[in-house]
C-alpha cells in the first residue's frame, strides 16, 4: 500500500477517533466512531488482513454501532448541556493521557524493528480466511468454544438485564 493512502486512512482514523471524545452530541460521537472504524478497517486491509478488516466493518460498523445508535436514540440522549467543567479534573485527565502518549512515543522510538518496513508476501492473493479458519479450529479450538459460551452467557445476561420487571 502506498504511503499516501496509509496516511490518509491513518489521519481519518485518528481525527474521527478524537471527534468521538470531543463531540458533545452522542449521535455525532457514534457516527465519528463509525468513520474511525472504517478507516481502521482500511488500515487492516493495507496489512493484507482482509478477513479481519471486513469483520471489523461487519461487526463494529454494521452491528455494534447500530446498537449504540439505537440505544442513544431510544434513550433520547440529547446534546449534553454545558455543565460546569471541572478544570482541574479535566487537566488531570488530559495530562495522564498525554503522559501515556509520550510513553508510547518513547517506546516506539526505542523499539528497533519499528523502523523496518514490512517484508513482502509471496503472492498477492493469499487466502487469509482459510488460514485463520484452520488456525481457529485447530490450535485455538478450546478458546473458540469458550468464546462461544461467553457470547451465550452475554446473550442471556442482556435478555435478563433488559427485561422489564413486571409491575406488581
Amino acid at each position: 500500500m502506498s504511503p499516501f493512502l496509509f496516511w490518509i486512512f491513518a489521519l481519518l482514523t485518528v481525527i474521527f477517533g478524537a471527534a468521538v471524545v470531543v463531540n458533545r452530541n452522542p449521535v455525532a460521537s457514534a457516527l465519528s466512531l463509525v468513520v474511525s472504524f472504517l478507516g481502521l478497517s482500511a488500515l487492516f486491509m493495507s496489512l493484507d488482513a482482509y478477513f479481519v478488516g471486513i469483520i471489523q466493518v461487519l461487526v463494529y460498523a454494521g452491528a455494534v454501532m447500530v446498537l449504540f445508535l439505537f440505544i442513544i436514540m431510544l434513550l433520547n440522549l440529547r446534546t449534553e448541556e454545558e455543565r460546569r467543567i471541572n478544570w482541574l479534573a479535566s487537566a488531570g485527565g488530559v495530562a495522564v493521557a498525554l503522559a501515556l502518549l509520550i510513553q508510547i512515543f518513547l517506546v516506539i522510538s526505542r523499539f528497533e524493528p519499528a523502523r523496518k518496513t514490512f517484508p513482502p508476501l509471496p503472492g498477492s492473493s493469499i487466502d487469509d480466511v482459510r488460514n485463520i479458519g484452520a488456525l481457529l479450529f485447530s490450535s485455538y479450538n478450546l478458546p473458540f468454544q469458550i468464546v462461544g459460551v461467553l457470547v451465550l452467557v452475554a446473550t442471556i445476561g442482556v435478555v435478563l438485564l433488559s427485561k422489564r420487571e413486571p409491575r406488581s
Partner: protein
Amino acid sequence: MDSFFIITSLLKIVGILFVVILPMVSYAVYAERRVSAFIQDRLGPNRVGPAGLFQPIADMFKLLLKEDFTPRAANTFYYWLAPCLAVMPAIITIAVVPFGSTLFGIPMVIADVNVGILFVFAIASLGVYGIVIGGWASNSKYPFLGGIRSSAQMLSYELSLGLAVVPVFLVVGSLRLTSVVGYQIEHGWFIAPFIGDLANPWKWLLAIPMIISFLVFMIAMFAETNRLPFDLPEAEQELAGGYNTEYSSMKFALYFLGEYAAMITGSGVIVTLFFGGWHFPGIPDGSHGWIFGLINIAVFFAKVAIMIFFFMWVRWTLPRFRYDQLMRLGWLFFFEIALVNIFIVAVILTFARP
C-alpha cells in the same frame, strides 16, 4: 497494479454503474409501477413515450424541479448526509459480484476479493445508517419511529442473512464469489440440481437444504432491503412514509434510488449464490469469443431482472407483517432454521462430498 488494470477497473466501474445499474434503477421504479398496476388490473404509467417508457425521465425532472425543503427543526448536516449514506452502500456492494465471465480476457468483476460475501454483508449493513440518521435528523415523530424500527429490524435479520449462506460456502469451500459461480458451473446450480451431472445422488440430497437456505436468504433479503412484507421502516399506512416523510425533491429521490439499488444488488447476490451467476447451460463463457462474453453478462442481468420481478410480485401480494411478528419470525424461526440447515449440510458433507 499496472495502469492497464486501473483503466480496465475504472471502465468496469463506470460501465456497470452508469450504463447498467442507474438505468436499471430508474426502470425498476417504472417496472414496479407497471407490475403493481398489472397485478391490480390497472394499466400503470403509459403516457410518456411508447408504453410509458420515458416515465423515468419525466419522474427525474419532476423530482429535480421540486422544492428542496429542509424542516426548520431538522439537524441540517445529518439531514443532508443521510440520503447519501442510503445510496452509497447499495451501489458499492455490486463491486464484488461477478456479473459476467470474461470480455476480451478481462474478468467481469470489479474486485474479486477473497472475502466476497463478507464484503457484501459488511457494506449492506452500513445501509441502515442512512435510514436511522435520516429518521433521527428529521426531528419528527414518524421518521424517528421508522429509523428506530429499521435499526432493530436490520440487526435481527442480518443474522439469518449471514447464517443462511453458510451452507453454500461449506459446499464451495471459499468465500470468493467467483469460486461460487465456478462451482455451480461445474456441479450445477445450487437450487436446480437438474443442471449439470444428473447421476450424482448427493447433489439431489444437497438441493433440499440449499432450497431452505435460499428461502431464508431471500426472506432476510426482503427485510434487509425494506421490501414489502417487511417494510416497517416506511410503512405508509402507519408511519406516513416512515423515515423519508420529511424528505422532498432529490433527497427523497436518493432514498428511492438507494432502495432500488439495494434491491438490484441483492438480486445480484442471490443470483450469484443460488442461480449460477452468469452461467446458463449450453452457453460457453467469454473465452470462446467476445459475443459469448456479452451474452453471459446479458444472462446475468436477465436473471437479476427475473429476481426483481419476483421481489415486486411478492410486494404486491403479501400484506405487511406486524412489528412483533417480524421480530418473532426473525429470531425464533429463521435463525433456528438457518442453524439447523448448516448442521444438515455439514452432516451431508461429512458422509460424502458430491
